[in-house]
């Protein structure tokens, strides 16, 4: 605690005044010859615990009242939660900033966002704390930023808002790495966040490791979480979930599906959604009743003169969080759906080729290239959206090519070989075939997402109607997408971009081919996913997925987005960027719109066994964490005086006193 009038503290010895008065009072006693000594002696002998306690309490309250007055006059400044730091000056203060879009929420009354308030309060606190070194970590991939001036945090671009969710486990990992590398002494890690579930990933298993790592550090590390967890009030978010271009007569049409979401249920309301394409804006009213309203397949005719490629923006009127009111989208003529089929079995090859080369819509073009496994590396993988691979798992250079293809965003669906080998690819391998004398039928499959999700109209795929005669078992981690009885996988996903089917479309193995809908849907959806990533117009989530923007050698032009964006921050801000060939729209990830806030207990649990303090902040709070608190001392003084008065109150007379009236027979008779 610091004081504006520290000289007044010199009068603190006055606190002893009640004690001195008491002692003086004790000195001016009277001496009295006394006859009824026997009562005095027995009164003395009686327990006087409460009486003694009461005297001490009265004395303490009087001293407290004086101390409070002196402290109030000294005009104390409270560092509030800074006091919790224990006063010890840390060697290093590491600041971890959550710059996710949700941190741009503000209250109705004040213009400051959570991020701005947090940064300002951090600066004030860090100045007060006076650590020797200050380090800012906002991006786990980037080097921690050593700050020469703490105040810079308030206006550093690297501390500004982004469209990227904050990956707290990775950020803390980066802080840990920095602490171990820099051999810092006593350190304090300041986290400014709004406790969004998607930022903290509290269920992630890495937290245990992070906790242990920090606990094992030789130096003392304190955690301070400045938490802005108030939920957004009446915040709406908009998002384009699908763009499709179709030819209609001479012209072309853009079909958009727009979703407007809010974080709490509310009254039915109409939201004006503005769609802007090529500088032309149109507003559509969307009725929002529950949490989400979807403007499905909104058709916008496109200007014939404009090229096939373009971008647009969907926006909402301003609300408490401006960061989720805009969503950028790009569109282009669908590129050819190029698929490579690698199959050792001719029947399989035929079926796979067939389902891959029939485009789902008549305007789309599809091309299938059948290659041998050995020649796979030389195929035109850059333009390929998906690979259907039936045969032994790739090895050597072929495997590297497949991995590179998947790494670029391509999709691979593996089908089992006739003779399973020991080859392991991406952590999984084919084991052996099992014959099922009675055909098995799928008992469960994921209808909410991925390859077997329900059709657009809402109906489920007829996966349960497939009859499976043989399955090839799989070893390795995977997420089952469809399961036969006894948890035998029919479809599964091994990793992002790698899926497998536990049987083959041949008549000997299953009815995948004869009941072709499921196989067709799986293959076309895999191709769709590949096209979405590899196409010339791409929608990307800000963050690691958009790292392509930061790659050297390709120059991206900014069509729309923050003007003052740093080159190192490419891919972290929403906007539309283009090269000669490609067009990319970067937006916040969908999880940001969910607005799920992790419970305090959950967050506290992540730091258990560590020195940790959570401080509740409020967006736009204008008062700094350092503030005058003399009122509190005056209140303390008043309370102390009231307490003293209550304790000093004489007991109701006559309760314990012998009734004098009873001693006088005449009076008693009266």
């Amino acid at each position: 605690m610091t004081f504006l009038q520290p000289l007044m503290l010199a009068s603190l010895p006055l606190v002893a005044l009640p004690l001195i008065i008491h002692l003086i009072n004790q000195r001016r006693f009277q001496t009295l010859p006394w006859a009824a000594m026997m009562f005095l002696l027995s009164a003395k002998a009686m327990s006087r615990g409460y009486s003694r306690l009461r005297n001490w309490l009265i004395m303490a309250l009087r001293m407290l009242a004086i101390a409070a007055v002196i402290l109030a006059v000294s005009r104390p400044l409270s560092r509030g939660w800074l006091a919790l730091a224990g006063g010890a000056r840390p060697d290093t203060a590491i600041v971890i900033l959550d710059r996710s879009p949700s941190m741009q929420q503000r209250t109705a009354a004040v213009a400051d966002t959570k991020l701005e308030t947090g940064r300002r309060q951090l600066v004030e606190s860090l100045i007060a704390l006076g650590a020797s070194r200050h380090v800012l970590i906002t991006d786990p991939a980037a080097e921690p930023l050593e700050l020469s001036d703490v105040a810079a945090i308030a206006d550093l671009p690297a501390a500004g808002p982004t469209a990227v969710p904050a990956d707290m486990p990775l950020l803390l990992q980066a802080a840990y790495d920095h602490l171990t590398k820099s051999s810092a002494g006593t350190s304090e890690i300041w986290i400014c966040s709004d406790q969004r579930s998607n930022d903290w990933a509290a269920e992630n298993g890495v937290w245990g490791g992070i906790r242990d790592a920090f606990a094992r550090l030789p130096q003392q590390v304190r955690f301070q979480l400045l938490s802005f967890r108030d939920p957004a009030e009446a915040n709406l978010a908009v998002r384009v979930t699908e763009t499709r271009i179709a030819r209609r007569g001479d012209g072309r049409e853009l079909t958009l599906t727009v979703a407007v979401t809010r974080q709490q249920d509310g009254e039915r309301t109409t939201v004006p959604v503005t769609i802007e394409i090529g500088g032309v804006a149109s507003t559509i009213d969307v009725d929002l009743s529950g949490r989400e309203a979807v403007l499905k397949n909104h058709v916008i005719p496109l200007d014939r003169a404009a090229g096939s490629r373009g971008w647009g923006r969907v926006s909402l009127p301003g609300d408490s969080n401006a960061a989720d009111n805009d969503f950028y989208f790009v569109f282009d003529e669908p590129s050819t759906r190029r698929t490579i089929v690698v199959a050792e079995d001719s029947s399989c090859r035929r079926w796979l080729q067939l389902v891959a080369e029939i485009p789902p819509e008549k305007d789309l073009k599809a091309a299938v290239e059948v290659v041998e496994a050995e020649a796979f590396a030389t195929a035109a993988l850059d333009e390929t959206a998906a690979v259907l691979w039936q045969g032994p798992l790739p090895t050597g250079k072929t495997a590297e090519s497949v991995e590179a293809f998947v790494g670029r965003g391509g999709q691979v669906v593996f089908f089992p070989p006739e003779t399973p080998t020991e080859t392991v690819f991406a952590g999984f391998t084919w084991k052996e075939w099992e014959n099922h004398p009675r055909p098995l039928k799928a008992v469960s499959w994921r209808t909410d997402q991925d390859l077997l999700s329900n059709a657009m109209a809402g109906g489920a795929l007829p996966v349960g109607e497939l009859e499976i005669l043989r399955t090839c078992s799989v070893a390795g981690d995977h997420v089952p997408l469809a399961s036969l009885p006894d948890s035998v996988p029919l479809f599964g996903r091994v990793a992002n971009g790698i899926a497998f089917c536990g049987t083959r479309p041949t008549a000997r193995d299953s009815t995948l081919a004869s009941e072709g809908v499921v196989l067709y849907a799986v293959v076309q959806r895999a191709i769709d996913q590949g096209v979405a990533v590899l196409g010339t117009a791409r929608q990307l989530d800000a963050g690691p997925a958009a790292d392509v923007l930061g790659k050297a050698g390709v120059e991206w032009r900014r069509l729309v987005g923050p003007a003052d964006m740093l080159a190192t921050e490419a891919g972290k801000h929403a906007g539309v960027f283009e090269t000669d060939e490609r067009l990319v729209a970067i937006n916040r990830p969908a999880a940001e719109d969910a607005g799920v806030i992790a419970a305090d207990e959950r967050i506290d649990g992540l730091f258990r066994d560590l020195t940790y303090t959570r401080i509740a902040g409020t967006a736009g709070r204008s008062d700094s964490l350092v503030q005058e608190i003399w009122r509190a001392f005056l209140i303390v003084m008043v309370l102390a005086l009231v307490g003293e008065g209550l304790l000093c109150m004489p007991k109701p007379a006559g309760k314990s006193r012998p009734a004098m009236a009873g001693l006088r027979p005449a009076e008693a008779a009266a």
Partner: protein
Amino acid sequence: MRNRSSPGSSMRRSRSRSEPHGKQAGSGPNDVHEQVRVHNQVRFQKQGEPMISDRQTRSFLDPAVLSRLAGVPLLARKPMVGGVSGRHTSPHRGSSVEFAEYRKYVPGDDLRRLDWRAFGRSDRFYVKEYEADTNLRLCLVLDTSGSMNFSVEDGPSKIDYARRLSAALGYLASQQGDAVGISCVADGIVKTLPPRRSPAHLRLVFDILEEAAPAGPTRLPEVLHELAETIRQRALVVVISDLFVDPDILASSFSHLRFRHHDVAVFHLLDPLEVSFAFQRPTRFLDMEGAGSIFTDPVDIADRYHQAMNSYLEAMKRVVLESGIDYSRVLTDESYEQVLARFLVGRAAGRGLR
């Protein structure tokens, strides 16, 4: 000495019984003044001093009070055994006007007491017996321990109060022909004077009262035991004390006195300040009986003091009820005349018990 008056003369006596003692019959307050004066004169003459003014009086004797109190007799609640005829009932048959019983004549009985009328009716010899009236011995037990010296600035000390009570009682008893003695009690019996009937003896009693100086600790219970044994015959024992001893210990002393057929009356003197304990400043309390001092803040300790006082008074009340003594609790700011009047009237109301 038996009163040999006949039944006829008893009728005359019974008329005068309701009046003050025969000596004072028809006399008023002036006579009381005269009595006090005479006592004083006797005293001074005895000391070989010249006769001085009639106004020379004892500080603790107030003639006006005495004259007012003289209207009510001091009566014993128990039969007394006295040497002469008096105002008190006797356990023996005597010759008062109050018929007691018929008894068969035995040879040797005085023929004059034979009830001829009864003989005429029943042809048997009966002797008519009457109640005897006798005098009593009044033993004043005055507590002269240090604690009796307690007084507040404007009030009388307890010893002064006790002097007045003792003197008035002694005077009243003497005036109705009773013997008066006194024992001053502190650490033991400091001074004692056995009961005698003569007015000159009363003067000695007053002397002792005047010279009594409170000092030393109280050993009242032991002294009461001693007195119970040493007072030879039934007596009215009047204890005037602040009774600052354990009531349970006192109980046995009272029981002892009762066992010896003494009629016990107690004046329990308390100063109002001792009861209220109303002090504001820290005080060093010096024990008046020499047992050191206690320094305390009375405000702090008052509730516990009152608690102790209450339980003491309760215990005393219980002891009094169990011992059957005539107990008067007296606050020293009361008028002693009232206290005595109450005492005398209370006893007169109980008259008739044999």
